[in-house]
């Protein structure tokens, strides 16, 4: 129907919308005043582990975490 429309610069550089949006949000959070900033930083913490499966078996997981163990 339409030819490929002009893309936003971040998509042309290979970034997805979610990455862009999360980046904007984290930049805004870093500009907050003090009590709000510490609450906001806790919102950004992630903790997950990812493991690839090969031949039906999981390989060693890579753990990505911001919480201190």
């Amino acid at each position: 129907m339409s030819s490929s429309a002009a893309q936003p610069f971040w998509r042309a550089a290979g970034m997805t919308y979610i990455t862009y949006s999360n980046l904007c949000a984290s930049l805004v959070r870093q500009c907050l005043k003090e009590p709000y900033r510490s609450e906001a930083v806790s919102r950004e913490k992630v903790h997950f582990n990812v493991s690839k499966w090969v031949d039906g078996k999981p390989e060693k997981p890579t753990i990505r975490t911001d919480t201190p163990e």
Partner: protein
Amino acid sequence: MLRHGSRSLFGRASATSMRWRRLFSTDLPVETAEDTKFVESWKKMNPNMDPPKTPSAYMKLRPPTPANIPSKLTVNLVLPYDSVLSSKEVDMVIVPATTGQMGVLPGHVATIAELKPGILSVHEGNDVTKYFLSSGFAFVHANSVADIIAIEATPIDRLDPSLVQKGLADFQQKLNTASTDVEKAEAQIGIDVHSALNAALTG
């Protein structure tokens, strides 16, 4: 019952552009969502049993477009961790769409707008409440309900001007030293967000 002017507009559009007929909100039935074809063939095969309900019977239909334009706009501003405004009746909101500041009044045409980092202002009588949105979307529905979703929305007084200035200077420098496309894009995003923050604080 429905607004006839919009119906004739949609009629023209559907005749010229669509290969299949798309349903518009003006012609969705308001009362029932049952699957009439299924019910009729069931009754033919098995007239003594009540037909079972199909998934479409459980479907919530699109809310009807009221015949008269409502006097207030219902706004929902939601974030992943909080609903800041929940069905609040207001007179107008101005959203920072990528195509510019967009004012939404009751009776606005149904729209989906991608938002850029900027200020959302909510006008209720003589009060104006402003929030800085990090980016997101605004959905305006035909029944004068506006859903605004963003990842971060803060009142302007929670922003620290010195951090904003520092951030702007940092990213401007990063843009000069950036080499790969991704670095340039990130630096440009940083500049856009901090310029918008700056404008929000000084404007």
